[in-house]
């Protein structure tokens, strides 16, 4: 970890001297400032979180009871599809990019991202991507209804024309992600403050550095596969159609070659966040910094060798199944190392439990539960029973909601004083935490049971023996959904500067360059690079 020796000039002077910026809409449209862009990413992702969340609530409302009550099955499929696409590409990924924009320059002592104009562009194409995607609801036949995994030929021959909008919006999201990733890599490689060697970088920077390479590796694969869907549907190609020599399973190989690294794209930055927060509130250095870095790198490497564990039932050769089973089980080793490191960091620390720490601890527990069900899913013969059931839904929501989303919440509470200059409302934040923690478990834990009992995913109606648990899950869903409005209230309050003024370093045990600048962080920071020893 970095040790700050001197901040070579008074940050307050810099504040007075440089804090001029255009006002009004122009500031946001034309900004090249990493903090403005980070803020826009974060607000955009929260908006998408609410949009995707309201779709989830429609799903849960229909599933509250057996029978079709509220929506048509075709609309239900549109909801599951759009919920997935929006949460993955609109909520979780932009939230991490927003955090990267805000925090990476502050953490490595850089004045901004390396490519500020491209940074502006990579954000501003995103709203258009989602406008295109959401406008498909207005088309005849509605939005895409083939699942966020858009398996061919359901997404080609058997889909509506909204597929074209889906494909183009995916292209734009992919471009945005690739540009964001390039920016992160160039920034980290070239703009670290003097003395900030690679092995002194905060883990959030490290995990994002590795994540960015994953993005550059797999986003082009996604672009390729959506283009093949487009040409299969409209231009007479047969990539995924056996009638012309293609293979529908080829689609799944390509998609999951993107899709599995994508899963780690959505969790590696979480590891970085939690690795910053737990030491801060345990008042003790992170245990095993180097092994954290190596574990992250090996998870990233392995993520390219496990894609077909999503496809055990497609009829792969036995030895391919075995290979992917072994590789998948292997991921448990570096992931375990991380969990053990966090627990050991807490061991014999002097902990306090401010809201960021509460979310970080909940992350460790609930992510571990999701990781353990991941080991169960890796076992091919048993996966035949779990595959495409609610057990899988429970698993990936544990790692994505109580994992990735909780870590984003933890990050927001941890750095909100730095961003806004005021302390967040402590009571509301704790209320948000406890409401989220309890409801997220009412929402997702019973899904394990209903999945083991045999309920397939992506169905709008189900057999009667699944009724009780679905009712509980729906109640949890609504509780969790509305709990997030408390978070909105906390953030709006802080954004309106209502709260106690925050000192430069509001957390006693926090470490890192970001705490050497005043709160709120001035518009321009580190014009003169700090010295790191």
């Amino acid at each position: 970890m970095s040790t700050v020796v001197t901040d070579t000039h008074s940050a307050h002077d810099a504040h007075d001297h440089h804090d001029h910026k255009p006002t009004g809409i122009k500031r946001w449209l034309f900004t090249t400032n990493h903090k403005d862009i980070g803020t826009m990413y974060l607000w955009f992702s929260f908006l998408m979180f609410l949009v995707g969340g309201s779709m989830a609530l429609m799903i849960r409302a229909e599933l509250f009871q057996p029978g079709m009550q509220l929506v048509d099955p075709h609309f239900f499929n549109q909801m599951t599809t759009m919920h997935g696409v929006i949460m993955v590409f609109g909520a979780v990924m932009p939230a991490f990019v927003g955090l990267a924009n805000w925090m990476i320059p502050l953490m490595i002592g850089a004045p901004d991202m390396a490519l500020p104009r491209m940074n502006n562009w990579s954000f501003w194409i995103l709203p258009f991507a989602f406008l295109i995607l959401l406008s498909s609801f207005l088309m005849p036949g509605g939005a895409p209804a083939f699942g966020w995994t858009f398996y061919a030929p359901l997404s080609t021959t058997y889909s509506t024309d909204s597929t074209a909008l889906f494909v183009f919006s995916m292209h734009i999201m992919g471009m945005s992600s690739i540009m964001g990733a390039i920016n992160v890599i160039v920034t980290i490689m070239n703009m670290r403050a003097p003395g900030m060697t690679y092995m002194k970088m905060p883990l959030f920077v490290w995990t994002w550095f590795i994540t960015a390479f994953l993005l550059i590796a797999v986003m082009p694969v996604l672009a390729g596969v959506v283009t093949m869907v487009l040409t299969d549907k409209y231009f007479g190609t047969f990539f995924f159609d056996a009638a012309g020599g293609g293979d529908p399973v080829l689609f799944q190989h390509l998609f999951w070659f993107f899709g599995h690294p994508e899963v780690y794209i959505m969790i590696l930055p979480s590891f970085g966040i939690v690795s910053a927060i737990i030491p801060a509130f345990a008042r003790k250095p992170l245990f095993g910094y180097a092994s954290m870095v190596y574990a992250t790198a090996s998870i990233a490497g392995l993520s390219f060798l496990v894609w077909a564990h999503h496809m055990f039932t497609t009829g792969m050769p036995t030895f391919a199944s075995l290979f992917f089973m072994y590789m998948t089980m292997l991921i448990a080793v570096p992931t375990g190392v991380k969990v053990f490191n966090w627990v050991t960091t807490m061991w014999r620390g002097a902990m306090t439990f401010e809201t960021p720490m509460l979310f970080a601890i909940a992350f460790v527990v609930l992510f571990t539960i999701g990781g353990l069900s991941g080991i169960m899913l890796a076992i091919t013969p048993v996966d035949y029973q779990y595959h495409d059931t609610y057990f899988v839904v429970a698993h990936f929501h544990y790692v994505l909601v109580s994992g990735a989303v909780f870590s984003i919440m933890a990050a927001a509470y941890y750095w909100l004083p730095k961003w806004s200059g005021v302390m967040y409302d402590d009571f509301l934040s704790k209320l948000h935490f406890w409401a989220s923690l309890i409801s997220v478990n009412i929402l997702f834990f019973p899904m394990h049971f209903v999945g083991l009992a045999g309920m397939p995913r992506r169905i709008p109606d189900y057999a009667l023996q699944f009724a009780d648990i679905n009712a509980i899950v729906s109640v949890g869903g609504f509780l969790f959904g509305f709990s997030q409005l408390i978070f909105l209230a906390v953030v709006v309050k802080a954004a309106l500067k209502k709260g106690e003024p925050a000192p430069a370093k509001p957390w006693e045990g926090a470490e890192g360059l970001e705490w050497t600048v005043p709160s709120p962080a001035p518009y321009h920071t580190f014009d003169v690079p700090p010295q790191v020893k």
Partner: protein
Amino acid sequence: MKVRLTSLLLGLLALFATPLAYADSLQLNMTRGVTDISQRVYNLHMLVFWICVVIGVIVFSVMFWSILRHRKSRGVTPAKFHDNVKVEIAWTVIPFLILVAMAVPATTTLLKMDDTSDSDMSVLITGSQWRWHYSYLDYDIEYMSNLATPREQIYGRLPRTENYLLEVDRPLVIPTGKKVRFLITSDDVIHSWWVPEFAVKKDANPGYINEAWTRVDQPGIYRGQCAELCGRDHAFMPVVVIAKDPEDFEAWARSEEQRLADRRAEEERLLAMEMSKEELMEMGQQVHMSYCAACHQPNGQGVPGVFPGLVGQGIAVNDKTAHIDVVWNGVSGSAMQSFRNTLTMREIAAVVTYQRNAWGNNTGDVVQAADVHNFSQGNQ
């Protein structure tokens, strides 16, 4: 926190379970199933589950002990350590060994599951939106298996019965004690044929054939459903399998072969016979509800932009032969499949007549089985 959370969860479960009593028993775990393979799968599931529970309990206990004891409010001073090579090697190697221990039984079970050799009989299973077709390769038997739950139950106009959404008009019938091989494919999109009690789940990929097998020891009725999102009525595509003693199975197979042969003979005979328009309309409505309504809707309105409507427009009011053509051959590159092997000529005649006269279409056209026969002859 964890203990409190668990008791809270259990409390909430109890709270909600009482007033909502749809099911007699609440199944919370995977079925043991009724085959040797499904037992092995269940045991493997429980083995891995308990290993995960033990790991979870150890990790969380250390963590919560730490949370309780190592808090600033107790006046502790934080330790300074941040590395320990021995410990780190241990918690890399030990999990690896645990994984190897899990991989061994997993591998042997998988090798058994994937061994489809030396089967006693084979059934070709074809998924199509949204029904299963079963074809016995060793017998002269093939038929469609459709959801038997009436729409009235789905839309809450009738009370839901015990096997809601898990009942079909014609289940698959297999003999007990025999190794039955399933050849699984699809006519349109990807489906997945799943019977939890056999631990068999295999994707039905259009244009390719997958293999799976089972050997059921206990006679009984086993229910499952399509497990891969396959479009609008994915939830309404159940699998029902009846396992019978070999003698009972042989008797069933003989009577089924006879039934299908009689049906073909009847079909031949009826080609020459005219049906009245009322008979055609009545039969046509049944066929429409079972085979067409999922897409074109019971009222023929379709789903705009997805499935074309049949009322006052399109094939149902234009050329009669074109209408027969679409039902007979399907429309390539669309969800409209060919019904030539699904429906009898009489049924096709009836449904075409029905669609041309129902919902105010009133074309007055009457289509007889002979018309469909003539079309098929000219067509081949």
